[in-house]
């Protein structure tokens, strides 16, 4: 990876702001200055070093289980030679300096944390280490060549004297910030590329109950709110009777919010919840009340069978290819609405203090959420102090451009004297949407006598994820949502003729990206239709894939999983399935082995091969792949959202059945291939091929193509 020096210089006003701390850094000019007023200043930086050698990293990427804190901190700590175990993490405040490079906001999503941050945080770490070395060398009156660094100390190579980084901050405060400091070579890495466990301080918090999530925010005089939310999408409140609820214990206030919800504010959340159940609402459910799941499927399927839909990709001559084909295969696929159901129910805490406000939440969109709060309270964003906590998982749910759970909390706390924590029930989480949309696809593929794919036709129909949001402008064009293209248009196969179409029906059901987004449906479509084409052609599915692709990265992964799984000598009486998909810049291949028994199936083995370019933390990657496999299993086997009379039928984990330990594969083996290509993401990339491999393995075991999710046998 080459260092982009030009960009570093260009951004030096921003980046230099992060070199040294315990004192503030200027945004102009190249010298640091002491912030005299406060001993510990408001951070305007990535790294803070204090006189007692305490080192704090300010991280703009949020931690929701994906390991962003550990991965990014590894990059900084390695270049800085900071003592790993003692580094402290602080969530960064909302400041432009923490924006994703090239984007106007802070956000955590698209599996981009480490790949977008590593270069600049390494540069900051390396530059600071260089400055500390220079300062120490000057003190000892030796050449910088004669000093080295380890575990947050500079060491005099000759005398073995040591100076802590913290003892040198006075010496670097007026030092000109050097540019073009060289990053470590691979062979100098102590952390990067090694199997590093999640940072020990974070682990300790998470195994002793001291980790603070948004739901754990406790402020002086804080009150709690529970909401009454509509159940039919688009419903409006006609009237409500709170005569009983308002006299219940602990209830302080009941108010209708501008977004068709009613809030009960009480001393304690359980009181608020009890009272919310006692409110009788007369709803105007509108026309959508007449709609049930079969209607929704019909709406989608009607579009699926139209020819005049927006064209995603058209080349070659599909009709001719189909006419002349040796074999053609076709299939239709159904994917239900899915709720993310993050482990920590949605919540946000807001304190409206006149012309200022404070908010504390676990969110993936710091800049947007703060701006939303400011806008609704009539304040400027900088008048809202934002704190980001750990996220009790998310899978995209806390990356909502519509900011739903934040808006609720702001409305609740608006013009109240207390800070209020608004917390959703699990039922609200399951029933109130922002779902991975229902998706109906059809696909057709032709193969010639030589076993080469000649044409691919597919249509995808699902609601847009971005229409009506701030993302619409750059993600929705010519009737096509960019997430519909993911994985479908960008498949790895050499195919001369395409006819790919899509359509986004308008429905009042709210939609949102779920971990790996469009790939959750495109990977099973592409990788299953290819599998069908292979089998129809009488060619081994792995051989067929390799025969129809050029990219050596894909081929290497397929060969890897073939070898790991002993593919060419597969066990009888088991079902094997293969799939490969690229998402967020990384490629993942799986072979899975399943056992079908008593009208049910169980995944026994998963053999995975991952190429994310360069692995910063192989152990973290293994953990994410294992997590993705298990996460996806629940959606493969059981979880789905269905509608009756305009409302979601499922309620809680008893009828929205996510994966449990008994569903976990017996064995998941992950091999990482460092191709050295451009770095890709990891948090989501294990999901797409899992959705696909299962269809192929079930076919191998049963001779049936199960293409409707969730997949129940019989």
């Amino acid at each position, binding site marked *: 990876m080459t260092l982009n020096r030009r960009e570093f210089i260009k951004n030096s006003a921003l980046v230099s702001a992060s070199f040294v701390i315990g004192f503030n850094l200027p945004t102009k000019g190249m010298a640091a200055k002491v912030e005299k007023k406060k001993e510990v200043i408001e951070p305007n930086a990535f790294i803070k070093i204090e006189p007692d050698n305490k080192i704090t990293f300010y991280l703009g990427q949020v931690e*929701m*289980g*994906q*390991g962003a804190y550990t991965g990014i901190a590894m990059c900084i700590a390695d270049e800085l030679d900071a003592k790993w175990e003692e580094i402290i993490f602080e969530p960064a405040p909302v400041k432009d300096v923490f924006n994703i490079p090239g984007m106007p906001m802070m956000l955590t999503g698209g599996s981009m944390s480490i790949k977008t941050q590593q270069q600049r945080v390494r540069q900051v770490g390396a530059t600071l280490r260089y400055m500390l070395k220079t300062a120490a060398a000057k003190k000892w009156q030796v050449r910088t060549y004669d000093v080295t660094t380890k575990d947050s100390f500079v060491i005099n190579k000759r005398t073995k004297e040591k100076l802590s980084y913290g003892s040198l901050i006075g010496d670097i405060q007026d030092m000109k910030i050097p540019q073009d400091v060289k990053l470590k070579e691979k062979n100098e890495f102590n952390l990067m590329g090694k199997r590093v*466990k*999640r940072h*020990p301080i*974070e*682990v300790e*918090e*998470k*195994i*002793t*109950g*001291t*980790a*603070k*999530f948004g*739901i*754990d925010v*406790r402020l002086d005089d804080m009150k*709690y709110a529970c909401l009454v939310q509509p159940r039919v999408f688009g419903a409006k409140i006609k009237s409500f009777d709170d005569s009983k609820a308002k006299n219940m*214990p602990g209830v302080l206030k009941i108010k209708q919010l501008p977004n068709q919800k009613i809030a009960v504010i009480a001393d*304690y*959340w*359980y009181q608020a919840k009890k009272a919310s159940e006692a409110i009788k609402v007369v709803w105007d459910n509108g026309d959508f009340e007449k709609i049930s799941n079969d209607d929704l499927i019909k709406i989608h399927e009607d579009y699926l069978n139209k020819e005049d839909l927006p064209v995603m990709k058209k080349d070659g001559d599909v009709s001719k290819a189909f006419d002349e084909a040796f074999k053609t295969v076709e299939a239709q696929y159904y994917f239900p609405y899915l709720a993310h*159901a*993050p*482990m*920590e*129910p949605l919540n946000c805490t807001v304190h409206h203090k006149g012309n200022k406000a404070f908010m504390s939440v676990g969110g993936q969109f710091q800049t947007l959420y703060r701006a939303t709060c400011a806008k609704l309270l009539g304040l400027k964003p900088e008048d809202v102090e934002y704190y980001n906590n*750990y*996220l*009790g*998982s*998310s*899978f995209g749910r806390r990356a909502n451009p519509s900011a739903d759970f934040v808006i609720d909390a702001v409305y609740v706390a608006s013009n109240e004297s207390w800070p209020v924590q608004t*917390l959703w*029930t*699990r039922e609200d989480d399951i029933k109130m949407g922002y779902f991975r949309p229902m998706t109906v696809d059809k696909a057709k593929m032709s193969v010639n006598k030589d076993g080469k794919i000649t044409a691919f036709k597919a249509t995808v129909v699902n609601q847009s994820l971005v229409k009506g949001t701030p993302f619409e402008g750059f993600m929705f064009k010519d009737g096509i949502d960019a997430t519909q293209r993911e994985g479908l248009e960008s498949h790895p196969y050499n195919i001369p003729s395409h006819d790919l179409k899509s359509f986004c029906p308008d429905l009042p059901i709210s939609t949102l990206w779920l971990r790996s987004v469009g790939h959750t449906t495109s990977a099973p479509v592409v990788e299953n239709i290819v599998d069908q084409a292979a089998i129809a052609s009488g060619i081994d599915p792995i051989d067929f894939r390799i025969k129809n692709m050029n990219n050596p990265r894909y081929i290497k992964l397929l060969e890897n999983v073939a070898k790991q799984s002993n593919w060419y000598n597969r066990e009888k009486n088991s079902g094997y399935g293969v799939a490969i998909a690229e998402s967020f810049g990384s490629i993942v291949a799986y072979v899975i082995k399943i056992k079908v028994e008593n009208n049910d199936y169980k995944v026994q083995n998963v053999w995975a091969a991952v190429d994310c370019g360069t692995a910063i933390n192989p152990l973290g990657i293994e*953990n994410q792949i*294992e*997590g*993705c*496999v*298990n*996460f996806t*299993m629940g959606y493969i086997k059981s979880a789905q959202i269905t509608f009756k009379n305009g409302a979601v039928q499922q309620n*809680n*984990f*008893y009828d929205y059945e*996510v*994966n*449990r*330990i*008994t*569903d*976990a*594969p017996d064995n*998941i083996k992950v091999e990482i291939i460092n191709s050295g290509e451009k770095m890709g993401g990891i948090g989501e990339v294990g999901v797409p091929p899992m959705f696909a491999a299962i269809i192929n393995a079930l076919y191998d075991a049963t001779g049936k193509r199960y293409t409707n999710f969730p997949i129940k046998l019989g």
Partner: protein
Amino acid sequence: MNAIFIDNKKYEVKDIPQDTPVLWVFRDHLNLTGTKFGCGLGMCGACTVMLDNQAIRSCQTPLSDAIGKNITTIENKEDKELNSLRVAWREYDVAQCGYCQGGQLVNAAGLLKANSKPNEQEIKDAMQGNICRCGTYNKILTAVSSVVKG
């Protein structure tokens, strides 16, 4: 008596309505937030604590059932089984988002108190009520098994 004992500390609870689930007694009345709310129906296990050494779902246990009893939560630093499990949790790098892990650890500790040598199926049966949305199940199984093997 109007007190409960949480992690060896006595808390007066006479002013708290007796039908309040102990989950909310910890979290909101006493500001002990280590124990988590996940579903409110005993379906996810995030709120698991031990009541007199038995794993229970605190969202389904009214305060009246806990009066005078000893409650062990994830915040307990002295419990023998919890500490053995923590060693394994560090070793196998189990936690991801961490939200369910308190419930997982306490539930596993409850299992080990009832049966110090569970086999793999017994571990799975005991842990199947604890959801982990991040999907750390393979690591959980490995970690608990390692404690059993000693």
